[in-house]
């Protein structure tokens, strides 16, 4: 595994405090199973089975698959499904964390302490070293350039380096209008390009896994899950999450119209000087300078779900990179982001 330089931490928690959380709720799950019978199937059981089928199909039909692991909640659900698919074995493919080096600190802790140490899974880490050398910095270069180099660029590098023939992604069709037509098995040419006109029809659960040598495929096993399904499943299955999803008093600054966490000493000093402690949480995870916080007191999973359901904005609003106008999702897809 790659060695991962973790940037200096300015405002660390007290040592030893685990920065991921498992929601445990005595009211959930247990008695539920009795209500699932052959005649009555819940949608989540069905979605779970379908996702497991997709994951196993890729493991059976591809030589060198990988699971893109962003450390966010969708990735965590996808990984949980992969663990179920091969239980009591482990997933027969590694995870890949494309690391911009600017993720929330607690994401690194989660990855190293929970995914690698506790679950014992193989997690490859890839950093765009050239970008790092060039000192690409989201504060200086802006979200577009930064994401292009450290995220998209790094992902392309990693896929080429390891010669993966299939990569699982945690994309969902309900995330964005442009994703509604995405296939579960989505084909990319050798330049990682997605051609919306040239995708194969998908019928039943019979996935066509035949690809040319140079072609790769992105597979989205949780395509049919909605955001609520994801949260519900995390709740039922007690899936641990990175702790910044939960509200806490944190030092934040206002930056380009968003509340940004001061997560380490790379926040420009003049900005850091304006830091205030606020009760905030994050609806999506990514790079701390690019991910806006939501003011919230939701400290329990059910509080988060409640807020989410009562919220009136769509999910990705919190991410600066998606604030680009128009159907930009498609642009990113063409570039190989998804």
């Amino acid at each position, binding site marked *: 595994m790659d060695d991962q330089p973790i940037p200096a931490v300015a405002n660390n928690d007290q040592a030893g405090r685990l920065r991921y959380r498992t929601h445990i*709720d005595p*009211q*959930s799950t247990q008695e*539920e199973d009795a*209500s699932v019978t*052959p*005649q*009555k*199937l*819940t*949608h989540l059981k*069905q*979605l*779970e*089975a*379908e996702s*497991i*089928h997709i994951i*196993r*199909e890729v493991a*059976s039909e591809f030589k060198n698959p990988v699971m893109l692991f962003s450390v966010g909640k969708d990735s965590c659900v996808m990984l949980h499904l992969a*663990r*179920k698919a*091969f*239980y*009591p*074995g482990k997933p027969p493919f590694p995870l890949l964390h494309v690391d911009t080096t600017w993720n929330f600190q607690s994401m690194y802790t989660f990855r190293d302490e929970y995914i690698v140490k506790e679950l014992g899974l193989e997690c490859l880490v890839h950093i765009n070293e050239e970008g790092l050398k060039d000192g690409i910095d989201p504060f200086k270069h802006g979200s577009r350039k930064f994401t292009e180099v450290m995220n998209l660029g790094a992902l392309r590098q990693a896929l080429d380096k390891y010669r993966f023939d299939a990569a699982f992604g945690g994309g969902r069709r*309900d995330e964005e*209008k*442009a994703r*509604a*037509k995405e296939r579960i098995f989505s084909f990319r040419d050798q330049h990682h390009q997605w051609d*919306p006109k040239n995708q*194969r*029809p*998908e*019928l*039943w*659960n*019979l996935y*066509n896994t*035949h690809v*040319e040598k140079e072609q790769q495929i992105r597979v989205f096993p949780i395509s*049919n899950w*909605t955001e*609520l399904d994801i949260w*519900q499943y995390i709740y*039922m299955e007690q899936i641990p999450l990175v702790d910044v999803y939960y509200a806490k008093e944190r030092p934040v600054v206002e930056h380009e119209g968003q509340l940004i966490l001061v997560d380490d000493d790379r926040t420009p000093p003049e900005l850091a000087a304006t830091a205030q402690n606020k009760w905030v949480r994050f609806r999506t995870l990514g790079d701390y300078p690019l991910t806006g916080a939501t003011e919230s007191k939701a400290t329990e999973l*059910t*509080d988060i*779900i*409640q807020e989410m*359901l*009562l919220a*009136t*904005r*769509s999910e990705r609003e919190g991410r600066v990179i998606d604030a680009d106008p*128009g*159907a930009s999702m*498609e642009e990113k897809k063409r570039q190989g982001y998804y």
Partner: protein
Amino acid sequence: MNTDELIAEDIHGYLKQHENKELLRFLTCGSVDDGKSTLIGRLLYDSKMVYEDQLAAVTTDSKQFGTTGGTFDPALLTDGLKAEREQGITIDVAYRYFSTSKRKFIIADTPGHEQYTRNMATGASTCDLAIILIDARHGVQTQTRRHSFIASLLGIKHVVVAINKMDLVDFSEERYEEIKADYTEFVGKLELPDIEFVPMSALNGDNVVNTSEHTPWYKGGTLMHHLENVHIASDRNLIDFRFPVQYVSRPDLNFRGFCGTISSGIVRPGDEVMALPSRKTAIVKRIATMDGDLEQAYAPLAPTIVLDREIDVSRGDMLVHPNNVPKVDQAFEAMLVWMEEDALQPGKQYTIKQGTTTATGIISDLRYRIDVNTMHSEGVDKLDLNEIGRVVIDLSRPCAFDAYSRNRSTGAFIVVDKISNNTVAAGMILDRDPDSAASRRREISEKRGTEIKVHESLISAEERATRLTQQPATIWLTGLTGSGKSAVAYALERRLFDEGKSATVLDGRNARLGLSADLDYTLDDRKENLRRAAEGAKLFNDAGHIAVCAFLSPSAEDRAMAKAIVGDDKFIEVYLEAPEDVCKERAETDEFAKTNKDMAAFSDMAAPYEPPAAADLVLKTDDLTVDQSVQKLYDLLNERGLLK
């Protein structure tokens, strides 16, 4: 308590409710402008699945792209890719999600235009229900028939006929009844067991989610009422247990489990199961999942099944109950929806994926094409894009399947082009025995055996042996292409000739040029090729000659057949063993081998080579020269006293 209050006051209660929801998948079919996008937008909007920022965007967009003169246009909630949006049309299948307090819904949105058949078949393949839109002004159209036909072809059990734009016909009951009668008349010919009619206005929301005050004469429920209440649980086949093995899990020496998705039926620990096509049986020991072992598992769950004994099961096999087995055959009849620009070519090899089985197949017979508009059938010699036909498919190996009408999972398959790798067709297996050349041959030969008696020769075997100073035998050389079969065979023939013996080579490639020139490379045809070769060898043996047969013959079963034809006492099985990469390298320099599809025995290809378990002689041809191999063979013949 409404949903928002429930969320605010009892989030646990709300989650419990959501957790127990059933999933209904449906598709919406209509011609362009029947109001499909408007209807979907309306469903999302009225069931409060739209965020305010999306609504704000739509209100802005309504002015720019909308067709409603700037007022709220629900259709814009469902628009997709940029290019399409600019053209004002949608292409392909898009999936939408929403839920009510009762169910979660997935909508497959398949817009109407020339790619319609392909897209609708794709969308319908996973759906429980179809909404067929009819513009109340235009009534039942050609497209309405087409949509209904495709829905029935893809096995959709529930149809809601949405008679839309009722506002434009003054919510006339008469008009509604007229359309209903028209539809009922033509649809009688189709297999659509459950049909409901709803008069509605998608644009204004009449009878979509809320009951309309304009249709007091209508006593049925709203569209949403049907969607929430239609009974789908019994659509699932819980009778025939079918478990296509998808992945074999062997995390350590103590665990061997078969992972897969249950296509239909129920399985419990203690059940006896049979693996197909091998027909070996075992008892289910455990049904393992990460949440603990299950007392029972049923379609469509995806558990891991552990058996009580080691039987040979791999991906592509199917576990079933021995008293309820599907068909296992190398051919079936099916309805095919052609989805590719390049027309279907009968006789061309395609890849067929059915369940977890992938096999090479040829469409050996195109029976007829069905006109999707009139539903008439007509004889044709090819199928073009978006055409539907009835075909016979011959496979390279046996598959386990059911009729699609009985099992939407084990009765479905896709056809993949071997060059482009595209999915070129979707197929539904029919409940009818195929009548292919191969199965006809099988039938005839089975009957023949009982009809005709053998005529005996007037010369005895002893007389021949004395004259030729040898005992007849068949030396059957088997091994991968490039293992040296032909080289050894011809050298042995020369050697025997030089020693004054009488031998003849029967060679795979020569057989393909003459004896079996009419055969293809399906498993069935390969078997036939070997049957002919063995019969040929037997004729030589009967005449007192030694036959040296050089045939790849990858299948142990086929070699056993050859042995049975020639006779146990005369058959000498010789395995030419060489590493696969050596064989491949040799084969690549050989012009014939390059084009010879019998090569498919390399492990990365369709029919794997099964090495003989008990060959009379094994020749490691990467160590031995041809002369050394011949010497070993010669010694063997001598030892057995065949050269006296």
